[in-house]
């Protein structure tokens, strides 16, 4: 049950942040959504079996955790990490070009092209 609540809370917070303006919120939202899905996959393996799945003489298949969802989650975490880094790089890049453009173009064009970033800029 606690797993369900955690997934729901993470997914709701993530979806809320993704739907907001601004790239940094987008990044944070996707991190939360990624965690929600990771927990969902762990839950898919069954939450009641938690013993480590090491091969040994007294291995009890009824109590060991399913290792496959853990492997899935590991892969998913790596992918999410890579995407997060790229998103952050894109955010940084768009700010740099944004400021360069700010110096070059007229105010009207500027607002049109960068309205998304405006609310994140410190006043």
């Amino acid at each position: 049950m606690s797993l369900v609540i955690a997934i729901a809370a993470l997914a709701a917070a993530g979806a809320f942040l993704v739907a907001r303006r601004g790239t940094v919120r987008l990044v944070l939202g996707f991190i939360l959504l990624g965690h929600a899905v990771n927990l969902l996959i762990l839950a898919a393996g069954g939450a009641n079996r938690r013993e480590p799945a090491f091969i040994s003489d007294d291995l009890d298949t009824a109590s060991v955790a399913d290792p496959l969802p853990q492997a899935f989650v590991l892969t998913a975490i790596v992918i999410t990490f890579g995407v997060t880094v790229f998103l952050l790089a894109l955010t940084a890049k768009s700010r740099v070009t944004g400021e360069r453009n700010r110096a070059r173009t007229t105010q009207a064009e500027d607002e049109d092209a960068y309205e998304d970033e405006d609310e994140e800029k410190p006043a």
Partner: protein
Amino acid sequence: MNPALLPLVVAVPFVAAALAALVPRTWLRRSLVLAVPVGVGVVGVGLVIETSDGSVVATQVGGWVPGVAIAFAADTLSALMLTVSALLVLAGTVFAIAAGDDDDRWFVPMLLAMTAGVYGAYLTADLFNLFVMIEVALLPSYVLLARRGTPGAIRAGRLYLAVNLTASTILLAGVGLVYASAGTVNLAELNGLGAGATGVAVATGVVLVALGVKAAVVPVHSWLPVTYPAPSPAVTAIFSGLLTKIGVYGLIRVTTLVLAPTTLLTVVILTVTLASMIVGVLGALGGTTMREVLSFHMVSQVGYILVGLVLAGAVGLSAVVFYLVHHTVVKTSLFLTLGVVEVRRRTGRIDDLGAEARLHRWVALAFLLGAASLVGLPPLSGFWAKYGVLRAAALDERVVVIVVALVVSLGTLMSMLKITNGVFWGERPEPAPEEVGRDPRPAHWAAALVGPGLVLAIASLAVGVAPEWLLQLADVAGQGLESGEAYVEAVLQL
């Protein structure tokens, strides 16, 4: 052919990508990026020949027990798509080099890594591995899309990222749900499980929604016409031939293997595909740039491809396969052809162009062939593709499909005439564009710029004149998809 070669089709492009990132010489990078698709193409042709009797080549990676191992498998559909992808990568790369895209030293490594993911998606027989391969293909595509760093490219890149990340998250959740309800993500073991157990069917539905976003079917299509015109013309052409197609392929594979043809599935797929056809072509009629028109047509054509999924069993599925192969080639040809005009003129707005046929005779010819094929005029491959869809619809007595398919074809013709009249013939607007007919590379590169689109258009003509072999292959692929037995037996080594 030794099945153990299958994972190499993914591994070799990866190694080549890493090498290309390290080598400092342009000519070395170029030979790598041209040699890899040639090799994959040869393997693909070998696989097509081997699977042309309906057999399936499969291998268990690492020699694990079937069902535990991550399996790679190639049936006729996979082999065909692998071959076509390699051909398109080759054509797109030649164009990209001629258009100056590889002046950026990261272009080639990113392209090679992306193609590795695409080939892997066609060959994997595991739902989770399909997710991984789609991600592998998408990660470099984010970079390729936003690479130019212009405000427009970065904005499009952000939208593209947000949409695809959402879809990937849903896809991963769907895979998790499939595992929770079925206890496996091996596609062969999932075969038929969606028929009885509703849990598996619902979980598969989540997977299909995510794949639908990647394939850009209505109502989750609107990201595509906004983002595809943003990168350089070469990148758009390569994307159009590779990325949405893995979404379409995934939809075909998962639907045919896992789900049973229920009334609900039929209604949903018919609604979605017919809506895609109509919405796509209406968008194309309103498009203001050449690539916008073509991007909307991708939405429309995905409807044509997928409608056969629920029409007349194996006949419909063979229409799906033929249409997918035809569309992938022709759409890339059109993007490459119009890309020549855009690269030389530095603009893609139809209103700013005119009378280009005088300067670009071969380009105009390639465009006419491609456009006629897209509309479905004989003797081009598009005619046989549409004929297949209409035949399946007639066999199933779905009059609405026939009517919509024909009316949308008329819309396709009108939007293509818009480009024909606006870009290639008709008056050039005043003032004329400043850069007249100049290539980014010296004159002897012109053939490399014009050639790829023309060769693909001629391929469509050749298939249209002599379609029997491809129709036969599509029939074999359709029967294989319909029964699924050969695929399951090969993957599980029964």
